[in-house]
């Protein structure tokens, strides 16, 4: 990797301090009413979704616009299995099964699309996949209960704390997965493919295999998030499960933070969630306009992401801030 982000003990120490805070915080406050607990829960989901996209989109350079397919698949697998009583409430088996279904879908589609399509065509193909699943969910008859969607037994709800910690666990699994993949020879292969696919292939990198691995690993995480979302909302319908927001917001977070970096999507998710929430509180009516304007501004002024400014790929003021110097290992 060109830029080493969390190097040495400083980075790990800061990470552990944050983790300790996240673990302790819900016990210090009334988790049911705490706005921060709710905020962190949604942000955790976005961190996982952003990292899930980052694996194929950021590290490998294969831009997928079909993450909502995997998110929605996760939602529907959990909802349908729970409806027929195959799994229970917040069932880990159900969540992992949802993740695996999304992975299998990604492998099948990935083999088909990634072997043939590059760049924009791949982006369009994955977008088409999401839209097909959307239509299938609407027309799924009694299996998906059509456009009205599946209502789940909301009396099962116990506590916000469960959701919070499951989301945190998903984030940790995701980060571990990303670290494992990027710190091994797999990571080198992924970056090689992004930088120059032909040269990578010529040097013996099994291009298709690694692309599919990155795409499928991202889909697994996205499926997990979809499953948790189904348990959280107690209602799964086609419009909500296959909402394009599940694609675009994580991509935006990743690009804002820095695509193809480890800390970028985390940073992007926290910053953007914070801004969206702030906009929602201060001016609820204008919130969507504000968020969209923000997307435009980010692409205009920060197309390479914050992390690249921090780590010295681009000169910037941020680099001079001690906090950023610390997390980037003084790079």
């Amino acid at each position: 990797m060109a830029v080493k982000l969390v190097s040495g003990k400083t980075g790990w120490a800061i990470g552990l301090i944050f983790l300790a805070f996240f673990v302790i915080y819900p016990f210090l406050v009334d988790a049911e009413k705490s706005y921060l607990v709710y905020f962190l829960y949604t942000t955790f989901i976005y961190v996982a979704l952003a990292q899930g996209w980052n694996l194929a989109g950021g590290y490998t350079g294969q831009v997928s616009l079909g993450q909502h397919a995997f998110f929605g698949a996760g939602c529907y697998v959990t909802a349908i299995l729970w409806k027929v009583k195959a799994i229970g409430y917040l069932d880990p088996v159900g969540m992992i099964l949802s993740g695996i279904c999304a992975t299998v879908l990604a492998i099948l589609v990935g083999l088909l699309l990634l072997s043939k399509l590059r760049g924009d065509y791949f982006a369009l193909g994955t977008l088409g996949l999401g839209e097909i699943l959307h239509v299938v969910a609407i027309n799924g008859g009694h299996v998906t209960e059509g456009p009205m969607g599946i209502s789940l037994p909301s009396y099962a709800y116990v506590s916000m704390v469960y959701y919070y910690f499951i989301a945190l666990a998903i984030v940790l699994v995701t980060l571990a997965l990303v670290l494992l993949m990027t710190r091994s020879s797999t990571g080198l292969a992924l970056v090689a493919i992004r930088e120059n696919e032909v040269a990578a292939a010529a040097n013996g990198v099994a291009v298709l295999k690694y692309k599919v691995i990155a795409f499928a690993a991202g889909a697994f995480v996205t499926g997990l998030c979809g499953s948790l979302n189904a348990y959280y909302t107690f209602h799964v319908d086609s419009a909500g499960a296959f909402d394009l927001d599940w694609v675009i917001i994580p991509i935006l977070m990743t690009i804002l933070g820095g695509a193809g970096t480890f800390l970028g999507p985390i940073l992007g998710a926290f910053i953007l969630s914070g801004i969206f929430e702030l906009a929602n509180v201060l001016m609820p009516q204008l919130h969507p306009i504000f968020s969209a304007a923000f997307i435009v501004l980010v692409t205009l002024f920060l197309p390479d992401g914050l992390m690249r400014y921090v780590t010295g790929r681009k000169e910037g003021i941020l680099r001079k801030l001690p906090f950023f110097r610390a997390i980037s290992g003084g790079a």
Partner: protein
Amino acid sequence: MHWFSSLTTFFQVLVNGVFLGCMYGVAAIGLSLIFGCMQIIFIAQGAVMILAAYCIFWMVTFTPLSAFWGFLFIIPVFVGFGFAMYTGLFQRVAKTGKNPSLLLAFGLMVLLEHVMAFVFSSDYRTVQTKYASTALGIKGVTFSVNRIIVAVVAVAATALVFLFLKKTILGKAVRAVSEDMDAAALLGIRPEWVSAVTFSIGISLAGVAGVATSVIFPFDPYFGFIFSLKALIAVAFGGLGSVGGALLGGVILGVLESMSAYTIGGGWADAVAYAAFLIVLVFRPEGLLGRSSAEKA
């Protein structure tokens, strides 16, 4: 699944499909032009169409003019709008790569949608024309006058763009930049200028498609996205970057949707369209009518 009861029904469904496809086609030509020249998938095309549709709605509401007069002012206004959008936003972002451009287009789409929802409200709007209920009939197959006008405009727009590309010096420059930007720049063509012109034409075509939409469909601020997707599919059918292919791709898509809506059921028409889209992308990425990549090279 049910089959056509008579030949008349078959022709009626076919005609409806062709008319629907003409509208996809106009939006698709703009998209295809912009892609060919700048390699950007301009996903906000649909939102721009709806903006034009709102312009027509307010024109018809506040003036005694008929909707089709709208073409006269929509085309120049949207050329200017496109020019401003390119020089203000895309010219800068295009230098940093393709992903930011795609994201910028998406951001613009969401921005336009929400601003329209805020200013015009999310209610459905319809534009009435005095020919709305007039139709011609040939042997039991009916042609609504509104749709005939839209189809004529679609064909005329395609022909104009085609002539512009083949017969004018500027059109030649556009084709040169689409083929090889570096070589074109070496020959003294300014790629930014050519891109600005292409982008403006693309946006004005979105405006034309918007006028057509306003008289045929009820619309709301979010109606455009599905049109962007349909235009993309039409472009993929015709081959990215080809003008005549885009219109034909639109017509193929319209007929496919109309036929599958009749035989399988309305809800599945979109799924059939997307499935066909995936099949074309995988097996003939150069488009149904495009040259294969081997021939191009």
